[in-house]
């Protein structure tokens, strides 16, 4: 940062593009962030050609709708989800109702956010995990709000959280939305502990000095000099989806958990179940491009195995749209209990053989040349021959 002007233009959210579906695959048509963003011009989506990634600029108003909307957890606000979860945990009163409210809603609430669309499923379920009896999301009619474009997001989050609650055997009624009149929201403050005195302030400074006085200063500017990693290597790494990890942690710790099967439609829910048919050539593009690492392959002996971890899948459908051979099929419904069970499914297990042409290990019976080499060679021949067969 070189000047104060730049400070003023800082973007309040961070986008980890390695988790962005659009960045990884130009065939991705994900627009989750752009659809809910209420600030005109704040989200720019790539054009699908060279650069397809989403980008967020300083027009962002930090409402957090995109944070909740991005299924891959690629976007983080400065006050990240775990800090909000901590605040919620402090405020929960066991056995009582926990109220989330937007700042336009009249009345008192345990947590007030500029817009309820900031809340992720993990945050909505956090009070239940901490022992609250019910969660209410209080908001007036969103159609008169400046952030109304973000409104469908909190309704989706609520619907998904309710479905999860039901699958956890707790009943969807534990979560509900409440329509309130427009007014000023008031956040219930935590009971203050001891009043801060000057003695305490200096005491804490002395304490910090003792513990961290000799700690080195964080070095700045070193990382920037390194050569930026090329895309080809970057996509081989799979970052953890922080949003899904938070959700899984909350789901595991829900009190009174009794997992039941609940089938929901894959459209509208960030989850999927899939099948791979026998025409798969084992190119592993689905694995490479999957932003969350839900697909993994193993090569043991002469066998290629493709595995799927449904709990990590966010239903972004990159795998389905990227697969050239169209062998990957996403089912229309998905069982929510997969999020609790974490079972890895083997999608495909097939024999590998080595091609004499390219030397690659490919799927299929032990033919001399792999199908890719055969197809290329045959096509060259066909094209050249078409001069003489009157094919032109």
């Amino acid at each position, binding site marked *: 940062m070189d000047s104060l002007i730049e400070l003023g233009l800082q973007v309040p959210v961070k986008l980890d593009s390695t988790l962005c579906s659009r960045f990884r695959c130009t065939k991705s048509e994900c627009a989750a962030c752009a659809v809910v963003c209420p600030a005109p011009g704040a989200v720019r989506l790539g054009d699908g050609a060279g650069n397809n990634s989403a980008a967020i600029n300083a027009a962002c108003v930090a409402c957090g709708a995109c944070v909740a909307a991005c299924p891959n957890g690629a976007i983080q606000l400065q006050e990240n989800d775990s800090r909000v979860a901590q605040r919620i945990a402090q405020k929960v009163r066991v056995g009582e109702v926990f109220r989330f409210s937007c700042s336009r809603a009249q009345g008192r609430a345990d947590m007030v956010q500029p817009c309820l669309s900031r809340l992720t499923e993990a945050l909505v379920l956090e009070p239940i995990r901490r022992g609250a009896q019910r969660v209410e999301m209080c908001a007036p009619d969103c159609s008169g709000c400046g952030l109304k474009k973000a409104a469908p997001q909190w309704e989706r989050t609520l619907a998904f959280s309710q479905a999860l609650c039901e699958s956890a055997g707790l009943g969807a009624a534990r979560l509900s939305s409440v329509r309130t009149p427009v007014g000023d929201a008031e956040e219930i403050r935590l009971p203050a502990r001891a009043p801060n005195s000057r003695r305490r302030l200096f005491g804490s400074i002395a304490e910090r000095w003792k513990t961290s006085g000799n700690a080195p200063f964080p070095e700045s500017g070193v990382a920037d000099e390194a050569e930026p990693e090329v895309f*080809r290597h970057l996509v081989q790494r799979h970052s953890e989806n922080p949003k899904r990890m938070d959700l899984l942690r909350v789901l595991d710790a829900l009190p009174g958990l009794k997992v039941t099967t609940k089938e929901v439609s894959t459209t509208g829910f960030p989850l999927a179940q899939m099948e791979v048919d026998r025409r798969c050539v084992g190119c592993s593009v689905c694995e490479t491009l999957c932003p969350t690492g839900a697909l993994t392959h193993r090569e043991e002996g002469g066998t290629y195995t493709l595995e799927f971890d449904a709990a990590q899948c966010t239903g972004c459908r990159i795998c389905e749209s990227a697969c050239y051979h169209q062998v990957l099929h996403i089912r229309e419904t998905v069982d929510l209990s997969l999020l609790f069970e974490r079972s890895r499914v083997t999608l495909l297990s097939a024999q590998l053989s080595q091609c004499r042409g*390219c030397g690659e290990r490919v799927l299929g019976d032990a033919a001399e040349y792999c199908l890719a080499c055969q197809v290329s060679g045959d096509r060259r021949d066909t094209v050249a021959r078409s001069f003489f067969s009157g094919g032109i």
Partner: protein
Amino acid sequence: MSEYSPIVPREAVERSFAKQGPKQYTLWVDIEHCIGCNACTIACKAENNTPVGVDYNRVIEIEEGDFRDASKTPNVGVTFVPMPCMHCGQPACMAACPVGAITKRKEDGIVLINKDKCIGCRYCAWACPYGAPQFNAEAKIMEKCTLCVHRVEKGLQPACVTTCPAKVRFFGELNELTMVMKERRAKGISISVGGADTKPSVQYTSK
């Protein structure tokens, strides 16, 4: 030996280079006079330093006629068809690439694979009707004819064109080349196969 042929003289190539705005550089191959020496293949390998098995340009041999039928006079012949990348107007490889590694440059119509982006999935090879993209098993990426973009940018012709001893390969801007060849009464044909027409730019002169 001059690197220009009398058919497409130096001035014509220079006019191609000087042309402003969006254009399409391409090759013109006269297969009637191609002697099948594979000098273009070797020049390409040397220029682009490609490993064994990766050939941006291949010469396909087509044998015609039959000599086994004793009742007829033997009438056999062999024709050579050099096959580089066709630098298509609507590249099938570009459409198939899942990561956007393949681009067609507006300024000169050259179709290029970005080596930093390519993940080596071979989808371009599956999609290309001409079998042009080649898999580099060492680097695990796809490569193909770049129309010697590094030479063309310096105002030089592709290595295969300057090397061709029979002077049957010509380089230039598509419209310019067509104009020059029309004066020679040669009709160019582009080979398109299959259902999808990718609008190949490379032209051939046949018998």
